């Protein structure tokens, strides 16, 4: 149980140090950075992946591309991709790091959006056309709401990925909570390593809970079966 005692000591040392709560490398600032980078990458990924997924799912063109990208994204090592982009583009701005973050978070959203639209009951789609809706109306008023749970699942999986990769990206110089872990490890400051790790884990869990809440609020009750239709 020795490790538990030193673990708690490290936590007390890290969170108890007033220096860790102020300035550009204080916890509030690092937390904000982590949120900023993750949100930026996720928003860009959503802007790319959702329209593309809707298009492919609705038209049925480019399905192979979607499947291949999903498998490739799973196989590509994030650390390798980060180092590659930084070596290629230099570390003058955050973009050499943000680009791989976006690249890795597009496929989960893309695949799930595509699967969601493709999985809509054909009878439902026909019924919508039968009621006189045009293609675009069918997409927005029927396909998107029905596919929303899967689209949000894709976003949640991407968010998990982005939070984790933003942490790893601290190795290639990005700010955020990963800094405590990477710098602490390099200087054998284990209070910082353990404190930073706990913060990142909490951050990831909060993101999860937020996504669960968003899903609750945005998915139509008819789709989520919360509303019993008789």
């Amino acid at each position, binding site marked *: 149980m020795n490790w538990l005692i030193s673990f708690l000591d490290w936590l007390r040392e890290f969170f108890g140090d007033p220096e860790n709560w102020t300035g550009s490398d204080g916890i509030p600032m690092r937390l904000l950075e982590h949120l900023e980078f993750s949100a930026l990458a996720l928003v860009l990924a959503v802007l790319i992946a959702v329209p593309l997924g809707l298009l492919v799912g609705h038209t049925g063109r480019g399905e192979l591309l979607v499947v291949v990208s999903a*498998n490739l994204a799973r*196989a590509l090592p994030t650390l*390798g991709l980060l*180092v590659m982009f930084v070596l290629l583009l230099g570390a003058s701005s955050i973009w050499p790091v943000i680009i791989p973050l976006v690249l890795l978070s597009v496929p989960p959203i893309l695949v799930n959006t595509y699967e969601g639209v493709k999985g809509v009951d054909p009878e439902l789609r026909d019924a919508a056309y039968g009621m006189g809706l045009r293609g675009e109306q069918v997409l927005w008023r029927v396909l998107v709401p029905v596919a929303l749970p899967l689209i949000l699942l894709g976003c949640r999986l991407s968010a998990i990925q982005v939070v984790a990769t933003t942490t790893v990206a601290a*190795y290639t110089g990005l700010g955020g909570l990963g800094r405590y872990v990477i710098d602490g490890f390099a200087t054998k400051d284990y209070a910082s*390593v353990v404190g*930073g*790790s706990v913060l*990142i884990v909490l951050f990831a869990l909060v993101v999860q809970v937020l996504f669960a809440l968003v899903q609750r609020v945005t998915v139509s009750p008819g789709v989520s079966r919360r509303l019993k239709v008789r």
Partner: protein
Amino acid sequence: MGDGPPSIWEWIGRNWDTGRADSIRNLLTDHLTMSLVPIVIALLLALPLGLACVRWRWLYQPTSGFMNVVYALPSLPVFMLLISVTGLSQTTVIIPLTFYGMAVLIPAVVDGLGSVPDHVRQSAVAMGFTPLRRLLAVELPIAAPVVLAGMRVVAVSSISLVSVGALIGQGGLGGLFTRAYQNPFMPPVIVGIVLIVLLAVVADGLLVLAQRLLTPWVRARKGQAA
């Protein structure tokens, strides 16, 4: 050293087997160990746990909830937190990867067993199969495609995730990335990425092959339909 930067092939030749711990060959071996061990352990643990969740339905909700949480934990901080328990060893990478694997495989086992049609199960009972024999000879083979689909996801993501371990000095081929970053040099990065993707493709291919061999009736049925 020669004049000018060496080509990728030259670099591979020079670093393939230097006898040191960070030769490409040794990194490749480490990488295979740290990715395959979690896949196997995760399967061995997910099977009984999945079975338990099917047998006692109330277990499934808390188990899948817990596994969802586990799956959301970023790997690097988990490695870091484990260091104080298991040290800077391969175990520190293997344990979290095993849990990530279980997070995918337990639902796969449960869904797979759920896909066994009731009439098939009842036929087995009527034919006098004992519960164990029914499980091994009827239910698990029918569940195999779903479980193997989960295995493919786990194998590919484990192989690529191991490389993050390089940040605690245990990343297999990921070591090439940290080396390339500390001493800015592109060939190790390219070699690392290509080898890891190749490993993932091979593992995926082997699992597809296993699926074909284990479930010959799937293809036979498709052939009939065509």
